[in-house]
C-alpha cells in the first residue's frame, strides 16, 4: 500500500500543490491542505480502482473541496494578517505578476482559470472536478478572463 501511495505522492504532489496554491496563494495553507488531500488518499487508497488519469482528477477534486473547506473554516475566515507579514508576502510575490493579480480577483474564478490555462482541461472536465455545471464553468472562465485582462491592462 505504501509503495503505491509513495508513487502517487511523488507523481502528483506538485500538481496538487500548484492547484491548491492557485486558490489559497500562500505556502503554509497550501502545505496544510496538501497534507489533508494525501491523507484522504492514504485512507481511501484501497477503496478505489485508481487508474493514473483518474488519480489525478480524484486528487484535484478532493483538493478543490479541501480548499473551499479550508477558507470557510472559522479559524481561517477570522484570520487577519499582521501588516508587516502581509507586506512580506507581497514582496515575496513581487516577481509573480499573475499571482499578485490573482490575489485581487474572486476565489471562485481562480480554480477554473488555473485548470483551464495551466492544466489544459476542457470545460467539461473542469465542471466535473469542481462539481459545477458546464454553463457555470463557462461563465466563471469568461468573467475570470475579463477580470484578469482588466487587471493586466491596468499594470
Amino acid at each position, binding site marked *: 500500500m*505504501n509503495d503505491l*501511495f*509513495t508513487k502517487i*505522492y511523488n507523481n502528483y*504532489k*506538485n500538481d496538487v*500543490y*500548484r492547484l491548491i*496554491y*492557485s486558490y489559497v496563494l500562500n*505556502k503554509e495553507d497550501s*502545505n496544510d491542505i*496538501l*497534507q*489533508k488531500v*494525501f*491523507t*484522504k488518499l*492514504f*485512507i481511501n487508497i484501497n477503496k478505489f480502482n485508481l487508474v493514473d488519469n483518474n488519480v489525478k482528477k480524484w486528487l484535484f477534486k478532493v483538493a478543490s473541496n479541501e480548499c473551499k473547506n479550508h477558507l470557510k473554516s472559522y479559524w481561517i475566515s477570522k484570520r487577519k494578517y499582521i501588516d508587516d507579514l502581509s507586506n512580506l508576502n507581497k514582496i515575496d510575490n513581487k516577481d*509573480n*505578476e*499573475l*499571482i499578485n493579480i490573482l490575489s485581487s480577483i474572486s476565489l471562485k474564478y481562480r480554480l477554473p*482559470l*488555473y485548470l483551464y*490555462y*495551466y492544466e489544459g482541461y476542457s470545460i467539461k472536465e473542469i465542471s466535473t472536478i469542481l462539481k459545477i455545471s458546464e454553463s457555470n464553468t463557462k461563465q466563471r472562465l469568461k468573467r475570470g*478572463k475579463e477580470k*484578469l*485582462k482588466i487587471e*493586466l491592462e491596468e499594470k
Partner: protein
Amino acid sequence: MNKIDNLYKNEFSNIELEDEDSNKIYNNIVSKRSVHKYFINKLFVVLLFSIFIGFTGIVSANIIKDNLPKNWFYHTDDSIVVDHDGVIREVNQIDYDIINQDYVLNNCKSELYDKYIDDYFGLDNMINPCYKEYTYDVYEDDLKIKLVRSTFNKKDKLILKEVEKNNNRLSRIVLYSPNTTNIIPDKYNKYEPYEISSKDTKYDLTVIIKTPDYVKNELTDEEKLYFKANERLTLDYKEYNIKQINSKALVYRITPDGWRSPNYVIEYVYDNIFYTVSLDFRQTNNIDEEINAYLDSLYVEED
C-alpha cells in the same frame, strides 16, 4: 489571451513543493500521524453534531411542551376532580391524600372545566380519544374514589372507568359530561346528587346513580318519541337501541363500550333511578339476543 496563457505557464511551473515540506508531509501521512488527526477531527465533528442535535431536541421538546394547552394531559399524573354535581374540574398533580372536597370547591374554577372540555372535545376527529387512558382522582362527598382509568368517547360523553373506592376496586362508573346535548337532552346529564354503590350481579352491575325525578316524569312528547321503543340509530361507531320496557323502566341507550371493547354499556332508568350496566359479551355468540335477555330481565310486573 496568449499573455494569460504564458503567465500561467511561466509562473506556476516555478511553484513546487519544497523538499523539506514534502518529506515532512509524507512522513506525517505514512507514520499515520495525520491519519489519526484526521479521524480525531471527524470524531470531534460527530461529537459536536450529536451535542447540537441533543440540545436542539431538548429545546424543541420544551417548546412543544410549553405550547401545549395546560390541560392537555401529557402528564399521566394529572388529575381530574369530579364534584358532586357532575362538574369535572381539573387539578394538576394534586396530592391524592390531602385533597378534600373543600379544596376542590375552593380552588377549582369551573372555567377550567369548560376549557378542558373545549380543548378536548374541540379536537373533533383529529384524535380518537376513546383509548386515552389516564389516572384521575375523583372525590364525591366524603368518599374517596380514585379513577384508575378513563375512556373518552367521541364528543358526547366522558366515560370514567375502573374506579377504586376506599381502595376497593369497583369495576366501572359512567359519568356524562354536562355539555352533552346531541343524544341525550342536556338536563339528564346533570345527576345531582348521586350515590355510588357496588352491587354484584351476573352482569356486573356496578354503579347506581340517582337522578332527579324529571328523568321519568318530565319527558316531553318529543323526547318520548325520541326514545321510542326499539328505535335503532347508527351514529358513527355507536349503535343505539332505545326501548321502553314498562313505565318503570326505560332503556335509552346501548352503546358499544369503545371500539375494541367486547363490552356494551346499557343505560336505563328504572323506577326513577338511573342505571348503567356494562355487559361483557365475550362469551356469547349473539349479542342482540343477550342484550334482549338482559332487558327482559328488567321487566317487572306492574302493580
